[in-house]
């Protein structure tokens, strides 16, 4: 969150150690995406598990967050 709320720079989050995504996790991603959006950036997630990607996609998060599996 500190990186997302910082003044500049892209933010990439490695999800390799996150086997699943809960709503608390989604909330954190939302806050980071909002903070980045204010300075014209998009949050990038890498190494998302297929299940996490599925949840992000079905929730509509992939419309405003870039996700790589």
């Amino acid at each position, binding site marked *: 969150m500190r990186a997302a709320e910082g003044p500049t720079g892209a933010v990439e989050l490695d999800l390799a150690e996150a086997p*699943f*995504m*809960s*709503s*608390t996790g*989604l*909330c954190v991603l*939302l806050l980071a*995406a*909002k903070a980045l*959006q204010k300075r014209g950036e998009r949050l990038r997630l890498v190494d998302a*598990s*297929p*299940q996490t*990607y*599925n*949840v*992000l*996609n*079905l*929730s*509509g*998060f992939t*419309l*405003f967050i870039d996700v790589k599996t």
Partner: protein
Amino acid sequence: MIEANVWQKVPGAPSAEIFPIIPKCNCVSSNCYIFSAPHALVVVDPGASREQTQQISQILTDALAVSQRRILVFLTHCHQDHSQEASLELPTGTEIKRFAHHAGVEALKRRDRNLTTAYLYPWHPELCDARFEGILFASNHASGPPVFELADGESSELHTEPIVMPGSTTLQRQWLSLGAGNRLEIYHTPGHSPCSISLRVGSLLMLGDLPFAANPGVCGLDGWNHADLLQSFHKIDWLLETASITVCCPGHGCCVSAQIMREKLRLIECEASNLSNVPLMDAERISALKLYTDELLEETAALLTIFSGRLYAVSYYLSLLEEDSAATRVLATFNIDQIERILSNFRRFAEAFNTSALPEWGVVLKGVQVAGALQQILSTKHVQQLLDLSLVNRTQRRLEDFLSVVRGLQFLQTEQPGAVDELIAQILARAKPSTERESTDLMEAAENEELFVEVLTRRLAAHSPLRDIEFEFVPATQGTNANIGAERLDDILISLMEGMAGTGVKHINIATRVASGHVEIRLASRERIDPAALGTRRLDLYNRTLGWLGGSLEYGEQAGGAEFLVKLPALQET
């Protein structure tokens, strides 16, 4: 009201005191109630925890130091969580007499691990092997003398005085004097177990596990009897109405007023009336239910996380449109944090199960508790007013199914079967909402700012993951009536299609056919799919649900793509 872990006057019996030990509700050890009366100390349900036994011993030792009396131990029934520690650890020379219903005494004597429910606990606990001098409600007095000789040369008589209730129903009753006009009354209230009794001191009634006897996961335990249970509810209701009882003390959880217990028992009686053919809750059934509980958790967590995610996504877009108050309102309608707390708590419990020797039965009971808590949250008015409720509705149906199955109800028999092809056509129509209707609702709301934001929110939340999927549907050439309720099949197909869409699939080919007494539904994609993306336990859950109907769910890879094959038992055309 009665407080835990402190001596206090017994309502309606001024010279008697009670010390209730009420641990956090669990299926391993029960509450214990200790009474101090002029001529006796009474222990009701010692429980099955070493710590609790030590606490009881300390309390009794302290009480005996003030005034030497005999100790009478009663079991409300012989289940392991109430009876295991009935031996107690007391100073040498302490006079102790134990009492239980004759069916319970016999079960303990013959080391019956079923009727005592010892089989539920994976650590193979020892059964209580203490001697029971007081055999309650024995049909033959020779097997249990009604008079107990005491060490000081006195004797205590177990009086038998049945109560004839209106309508000529008989409530079996026995009683013992505790001195100074105090007496302990015992009523035979079977159903949860044949040896279940309720005990009264003053205006306080101990009901054992009768208040939980219709709960999912509890009904169907060895010795459970539907007809006896309904009779016992009726008898206790009559007692609560006529016998000046003010407080009810259950075998687990807090004591409540007689009025609250009466209302609770009436609700339970309604639920219990449907439970006439409950299957036995044996070890095999518990193991299957444990797996079902795990699957339910994954399905519930997945559906509710996606639903929460959609609300977060809506709030994101509303914030972009500088509608921050609407964004906050959207999130406030659904108690995401509380749901997350409940699910996390269950995850921790399930993890503890995997790393320790918790009983599988405990996981099932925890699942029942979680399902009940989620049902309560999801049924609140705010949520009902929400936007795309299909995920919530799906979750609720899964929770209802789960609770029914744990209770032993054959829920699938109540469903209306239907034509599969018609249902698929309806799903596809829903997946592509009419653009004409969509444009008018915004136009109509344009002049009312509040309504406009509401309609906008509704539209943002109506995001369907199937909207951009290209479907091809090849229906069967024969009738596709199948033995499955439309709602349940709709839930499974939508979940599978959404799951496929979630992996990035752009085309789904659907084909149905009738073969070998089954209606087959093929959902195929041109792209490969990792089934783990949909959640393996969720797929197991759909397979389990279909299996109950004689159907199945299979996953396979075909011509570079993936395929889910749903098989349903075909209904014969008439």
